[in-house]
């Protein structure tokens, strides 16, 4: 037995950082122990890249501007799609913690109020970065290249992960608003199909009917996919393409982070 210690907890914002980091550790350490999560994280992006490149690539490649291969077109888009889908685990993870009583456990400890939320989103963001790197590696196998150089490539990954981070707050709000992990999974999933398919992720928007083009053009997923393509193909983005993506990324956090925090306080 050791003598009782009087641990010193950090205060203020340092406390949120300290507690969030420990809770993020908790989520990350489980990653290799959760086969289904690992599958979604690693196998699914690999499968999607291979399927789309070899099954659809032949026909869709025809409608692309000359000189751009389908792999060049696909990888930035599929990165957005995969990262957006991967944020679903934020909803599932939080709903699961709620359902299993872990949130009660954490809320009965003298820790920062939003630490559970911050920890979850931080660990999920790390996971998103892992997914993005895997995607680029698989992309290189099927012919994708950072044409504009590695620097722009890294920026592409960072911007994509930032958008995923922002979408995680939407998922957190969903996860804290439903009864159980199963419902969270469904509620977090269904709307992602129209969001990611009515976009330029897989096909050029010009191949869609006129009315759908209007939606697809203004979809943040399209805006982001196009921006990422500029990063990988040309480097310096064209005027007016950065601001909308930045606005969506920041805007979603500004709206949903307070919503998620207020949901968390009420559970």
């Amino acid at each position: 037995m050791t003598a009782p210690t009087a641990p010193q907890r950090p205060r203020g914002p340092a406390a949120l950082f300290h507690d969030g980091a420990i809770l993020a550790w908790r989520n990350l350490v489980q990653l290799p122990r959760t086969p289904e999560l690992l599958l979604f994280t690693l196998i699914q992006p690999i499968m999607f890249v291979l399927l789309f490149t070899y099954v659809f690539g032949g026909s869709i490649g025809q409608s692309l501007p000359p000189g751009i291969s389908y792999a060049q077109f696909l990888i930035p888009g599929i990165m957005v799609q995969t990262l957006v889908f991967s944020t679903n685990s934020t909803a599932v993870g939080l709903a699961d913690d709620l359902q299993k009583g872990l949130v009660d456990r954490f809320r009965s400890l003298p820790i920062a109020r939003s630490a559970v939320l911050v920890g979850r989103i931080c660990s999920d963001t790390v996971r998103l970065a892992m997914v993005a790197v895997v995607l680029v590696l698989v992309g290189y196998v099927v012919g994708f290249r950072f044409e504009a150089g590695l620097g722009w490539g890294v920026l592409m990954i960072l911007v994509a992960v930032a958008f995923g981070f922002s979408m995680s707050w939407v998922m957190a709000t969903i996860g804290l608003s439903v009864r159980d992990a199963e419902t969270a999974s469904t509620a977090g999933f269904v709307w992602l199909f129209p969001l990611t398919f009515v976009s330029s992720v897989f096909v050029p928007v010009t191949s869609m009917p006129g009315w759908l083009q209007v939606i697809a053009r203004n979809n943040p997923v399209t805006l982001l996919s196009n921006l990422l393509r500029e990063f990988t193909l040309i480097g310096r983005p064209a005027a007016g393409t950065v601001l909308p993506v930045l606005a969506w990324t920041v805007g979603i956090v500004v709206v949903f982070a307070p919503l998620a925090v207020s949901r968390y306080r009420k559970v």
Partner: protein
Amino acid sequence: MSPIIEVDGLVKHFGETRAVDGVSFAVETGSVLGLLGPNGAGKTTTVRMLATLLTPDAGRATIEGLDVVADATRVRSVIGLTGQYAAVDEKLTGRENLWMVGRLLGMDRGAADERASELLERFRLSDAGDRQVRTYSGGMRRRVDLAVSLVGRPAVLFLDEPTTGLDPVSRIEMWDVTRELVGDGTTVLLTTQYLEEADELADRIVVIDHGLVIAEGTADELKDRTGGRTLEVELTRADDLERAAGLARGLGDRRVTVDPERAALSVDVGDDTEFAAEVVARLSQSGVDIADFRLDRPSLDDVFLALTGHGTEDPTSSPEVAS
């Protein structure tokens, strides 16, 4: 000794459900209070308010003089909570669960390591400590859950239905562990729907039903309240039963019931043990062959029936509101 927990007129309503409807009690430092009641009585809601997980609609409660609403964060560093469903991370090992809470409480890595090992040993989990909790048995899960709530050496421990769903052996293990804690000076607030459990562990019992406190006292005091003791006499021959009952009735105005199946009669004797002796002597003198006799104290089940008009497993009770 002054009370470490003081609860004064706590109220929590969920829509139409009056989950807790004005509950008051106090718990002395270093004692065990049993909050006893059927499902849906408001036990869990009360504990959730005391553990700062729910804000009361009215009333107030203090722990070590700290208000559970205004001083919630300071209250949290004084309490430990072990819920009905083991709230530990199944995908972490037992050791990692303990370590994580130690770190969250502000211990450095070394101190958290040490505290984890200490608690694993104390709860006989040293061998299983490096396995994921999902591989644990029900009893082991409860033990690790309890261990996790003790990492910060809380002065007050809430045990919310600690043995619900456990097999008898694990239940007795949990009881032993709880007694040890009390031996160390921890104040325990235990909720249970098992009367036997309250009887075994609690110094004082608060009986709660439909969100209201309906009785309070030691187990003995509550038992006395139902009218005291019963004399049970088993006869060798069932033929003697009616005559024996007549003799007992002749001795005084006491309720006498017969059970022909067991050839037994029971007499309500209150606290008058001499009367019980008189009955036995009279039967024996009159040539009634007595096989066995004993003086029974009422069980807490009888107490609950007497207090509420229904048993502890009342299906008409409103469902427990957990969140």
